[in-house]
């Protein structure tokens, strides 16, 4: 097996940031998050996001123990790096920063998890078991930024070796609050279970169940769930009918949905590319 076996797809970190910020420091951050998420012009976000990331850095310098602000910063840095940064070194630096913010949030929250995330799998899995429903947002941000980090370090075997931990963390999020972030944890589990074909011990059928649940939980509004379902599952299963149907649904749907407009705009763009390359793949 090889080093890019587990290359992750574009990961979705953005949605759900806005609603979690209640404090006065967070009010501005929350409003800005909403503005980002409801944007239908990718270029505006791409060009405007760095200023917003700097603003978050500044706010955190003044309020370093604000958990919600840390979570927002982690997810936005991770999303920005995954979606817009193509230069590998820069993407690695930004996902590193994203994960560091997430780790800080974890460490404010749960000492056991803070100590164990770099330890062997079993220790980490035991720490996850101590988490409660209120921990779902911080755990989700941590796992999602870790996934982005792995994605940008996919030529590093130690990064790949941590994928099972990310999967375990996402499973825990599902157990704690599966509907959090429109079922985003299911979407990650869909991707993680379809990285390897069944012949190599992957669980594509389990992945399919997660994709379907993610679509269901977002009431079909999160178009990225359908795109990932097509790209990861339908291509792996060589099911062109499913692949094309999902992507045509995405193309026909309205991208504008509260909190999902940006991600849906991106999803439509990807759907078009996947439809165009289907002839060569299948």
């Amino acid at each position: 097996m090889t080093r890019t076996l587990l290359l992750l797809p574009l990961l979705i970190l953005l949605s759900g940031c806005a609603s979690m910020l209640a404090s006065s420091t967070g009010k501005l951050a929350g409003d800005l998050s909403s503005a980002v998420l409801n944007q239908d012009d990718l270029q505006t976000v791409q060009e405007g996001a760095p200023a917003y990331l700097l603003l978050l850095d500044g706010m955190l310098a003044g309020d370093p123990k604000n958990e919600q602000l840390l979570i927002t910063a982690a997810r936005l840095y991770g999303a920005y790096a995954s979606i817009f940064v193509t230069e590998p070194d820069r993407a690695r630096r930004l996902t590193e920063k994203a994960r560091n913010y997430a780790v800080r949030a974890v460490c404010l929250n749960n000492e056991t998890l803070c100590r164990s995330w770099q330890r062997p799998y079993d220790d980490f899995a035991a720490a996850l078991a101590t988490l409660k429903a209120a921990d779902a947002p911080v755990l989700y941000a941590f796992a999602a930024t870790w996934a982005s980090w792995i994605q940008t370090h996919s030529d590093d075997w130690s990064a790949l070796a941590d994928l099972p931990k990310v999967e375990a963390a996402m499973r825990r999020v599902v157990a704690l609050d599966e509907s959090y972030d429109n079922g985003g944890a299911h979407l990650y589990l869909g991707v993680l279970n379809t990285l390897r074909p069944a012949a190599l011990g992957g669980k594509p059928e389990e992945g399919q169940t997660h994709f379907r649940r993610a679509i269901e939980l977002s009431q079909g509004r999160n178009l990225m769930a359908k795109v990932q379902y097509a790209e990861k599952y339908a291509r792996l299963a060589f099911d062109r009918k499913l692949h094309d149907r999902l992507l045509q649904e995405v193309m026909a749907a309205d991208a504008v949905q509260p909190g999902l407009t940006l991600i849906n705009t991106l999803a439509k763009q990807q759907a078009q590319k996947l439809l165009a390359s289907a002839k060569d793949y299948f």
Partner: protein
Amino acid sequence: MSLRLLLKIQFAALMLLLFFSNAQALDLKIATIAPDGTTWMQEMRRGASEIVQRTEGRVVFKFYPGGTMGNDKNVLRKIRAGQLQGGAITGGGLAEVYPDNQIYNLPLIFRSYEEMDYVRSKMDTLITQGLEQRGFVSFGLAEGGFAYLMSSRPIRNVDDLKNEKIWMPEGDTISRSMYQALGVSPIPLPLTDVLTGLQTGLITTVGGSPTGAIALQWHTKLKYVTDVPVMYFYGILAVDRKAYLKMSPSDQAVVREVMQGVFDKLNRQIRQDNENARKVLRQQGVEFVQLAPKEMEKLHKAASEAIAQLGAQGVYTSDMFKTLQGHLEHYRKQPAKTPVQH
């Protein structure tokens, strides 16, 4: 002649050429168990697009990754039926076509990568020639690496194996003989079920390469690696010779040059990957267990028995084995070099 007319003629010629090349295009459908996006697939796809370009569209590779065409056996059957023109498969997968291509897979024949590299430099062409005589064109061997025993409890003595539930790849004659010679009964399972088997405790010991253990996530359940290379394995792109001969000699030369480059690169890359993966396993808390010389002796004795038995079963020819032994003896007689730890 006016420029316009010249352009018109050129355009017509181009159209004719395009039509002609489409009519002549040779589609090579290649299946593999390797998932899309892996180094294997990335490199083969890169090679394929270079070939399309350089043969002006006359040779088109179409890949079926991720085991969608089944395992090595199914792929071979589909090649015979003409549904596929080739497969990127493990050396062992071609055993029914050419048994001697398993010669490197015999248990414990190599003690180090240095020995391995020396023997391969002498014998790889024998293997590819043998395959070609039996109807398969290939472009060099790509290392998979050494397999080691990996377990949830430490194996410090050969006898410790008797307390383990050991996985054996379904239908793998070579590992079955080795385990029998060691006096243990392995549990045959398809690769599909290995991780689940480790998670449920159905099996406690597996054989695999460091990269395999991480990529297939076995490392989450394994705590020890017995640091003895028990088996060497490799992958190969085998193309149906009948399909291959449909290309013009100059196109054949392009395919050969490009794909040999791909396999040479894969061969080097995977060595590096395995070395990195060993370090990572250590970081993840996996302990590498060394065996005492007395225990190594026991292992080698069992391996000799297994090899003799496999020879009697016709798994390889004695000529091929003698050639391999000759090279090994020659290498081992050379003045000792500083051993390199892998």
